[in-house]
């Protein structure tokens, strides 16, 4: 059908190549047997081996995982509660719209703005307690703030697709509030909650800007480590590390996609 317009196909493929050249290049150089330069010197796993012996990198990876797990757990809980509250409570129409907007806003706010706001907030809170010194706590709190909106949006779209009939049917069939929640609402929402959590986890793992502003010396994450190393000069080890982070992200996104499609009829 498109034989008469091969240009469309060519442009599409060119765009895809453009999109993936940097990633592929990084992956290729991560197995290139050359410390410097951009010429191909043969295949090697040695940068990966070196990577796994570098304790600073391993600690950064652990930090990243820890932050991602904790912030995702908290954000998923709060985000789901927020979605349920927005959807099921009979808000006055106008207030409901304002609250919707408030949920959407953080998604489109530039990260740098949110980061600056967090810095200000924490410096105020530091007057009250020294636990708000930049460190693991502030980093985790920072991640939670930008994750909540994403979780809420994903869970809400699932809630909207469920409709209210199901809840009413359960109440009509003698279900108490808790029975309804654990036997009907939660199982039906689970694909949405899992998808939201996956998304939040990925965002946390990848985040640089907010981490950069809110981390302390005890909480260097992988993106921050990569950034500071790159400033000293790109090493093949960083290529290897970047490739692994990329792969992890791709896998998470695919799993999230599968989960959210699961049982959607």
């Amino acid at each position, binding site marked *: 059908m498109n034989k008469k317009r091969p240009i469309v196909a060519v442009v599409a493929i060119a765009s895809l190549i453009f999109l993936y050249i940097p990633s592929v290049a990084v992956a290729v150089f991560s197995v290139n047997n050359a410390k410097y330069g951009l010429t191909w010197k043969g295949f090697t796993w040695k940068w990966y081996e070196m990577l796994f012996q570098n304790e600073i990198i391993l600690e950064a990876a652990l930090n990243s995982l820890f932050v991602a797990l904790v912030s995702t757990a908290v954000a998923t809980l709060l985000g789901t509660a927020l979605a349920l509250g927005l959807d099921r409570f009979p808000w006055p129409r106008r207030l409901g719209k304002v609250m919707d907007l408030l949920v959407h806003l953080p998604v489109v706010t530039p990260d740098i703005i949110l980061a600056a706001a967090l810095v200000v907030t924490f410096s105020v809170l530091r007057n009250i307690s020294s636990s708000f010194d930049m460190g693991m706590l502030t980093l985790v709190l920072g991640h939670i703030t930008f994750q909540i909106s994403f979780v809420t949006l994903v869970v809400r779209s699932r809630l909207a697709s469920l409709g209210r*009939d199901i809840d*009413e049917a359960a109440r*009509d069939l*003698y279900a108490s509030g808790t029975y309804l929640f654990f036997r009907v609402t939660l199982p*039906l929402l689970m694909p949405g909650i899992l998808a939201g959590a996956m998304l939040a986890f990925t965002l946390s793992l990848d985040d640089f800007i907010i981490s950069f502003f809110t981390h302390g010396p005890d909480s260097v994450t992988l993106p921050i480590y990569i950034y500071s190393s790159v400033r000293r000069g790109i090493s093949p080890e960083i290529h290897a590390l970047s490739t692994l982070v990329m792969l992890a992200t791709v896998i998470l996104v695919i799993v999230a996609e599968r989960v959210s499609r699961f049982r959607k*009829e």
Partner: protein
Amino acid sequence: MTGQIELGLLVAQVQKSFGSHKALKGVDLEVRKGEFFTLLGPSGCGKTTLLRIIAGLELPDSGHVFLGGKDITRLPAAKRQVNTVFQSYALFPHLNIFENVAFGLKARQVSLPEVRKRVAEKLEMLGLDGLEKRYPHQLSGGQKQRVALARALVNEPDILLLDEPMSALDAHLRAQVQEDLRRLQRTIGQTFILVTHDQDEAMVVSDRLAVMKDGLVEQVGAPRDVYSKPRNKFVAEFLGAANIIQARRDGGRVVTDFGSFDLSSAPQWDEGTLAIRPEHIQLSDAPNGDPNWVQAKVREAIYRGQSLDLWLDPGPVRVRTHAKGRLAPGDQVSLFFPPEDLVALDKAE
């Protein structure tokens, strides 16, 4: 028969508004125990709101609902012996058919052997045995509807509410399901309240029906009575084809453009309207001199397969007669308007 009416459902002066829209403007209704009752009306007449109030899914602004003599107005849905078949069926998509039907029993902690027995009974009664392990999305529309019925009936409710349960079925299946539903209700003898906008459906299934309009009940009665003795123009026209004829009273008779007629019950007005069903007007080419015989000319003849519709001059009056008759425009016909089928309508408020 004890001669005493058992206490069924009583709706007293129920009002409900949504914002500035008055959905119910003071509805009174009595549904007897064991009858198949239908709330019939066009969309927006308040019938679904009334059903939801009876189910406990909506609170009335004022008025009361009594069930078996007890005031249940403020009792939440989960505590009423009333179950609903929803328009969308609202089956639980994550539970199989057994778990769907067992839901109400399990929510009330009925023992598992008892649950199994009662669910199996209802599934068999509705011809669903063998589908226990299936999920709702694997069923046909008719099967889903029966699962919704089983899920409600397994709780042995005092009243079963049905919210337009046929609307998702295709037309030829619908007629079959209507008859099945009527038979089912007669067999188990439970009180059913159906909401529908389809007058044929209401006729087929109901013992009694209430015609609703704009948040008020216009008329309550057996389908036969409401159909042949509509109280006003709205009821007459909503329940099928009706001739609405302008008339005035002249002594003991009423006079129309057609001629003058005897009525079996005299109108309350001096000038008003009469209604008569097209199929109640009798056709003959030999007038016998009775007072209710008139002459008219055929303006248009419409063959409908099962009947022949004649539009008459003077008109507009429609006569529905045997399809075998061969009448053409211009033919002269003699018509008999039976006095008991000519109904004087109430004046519109």
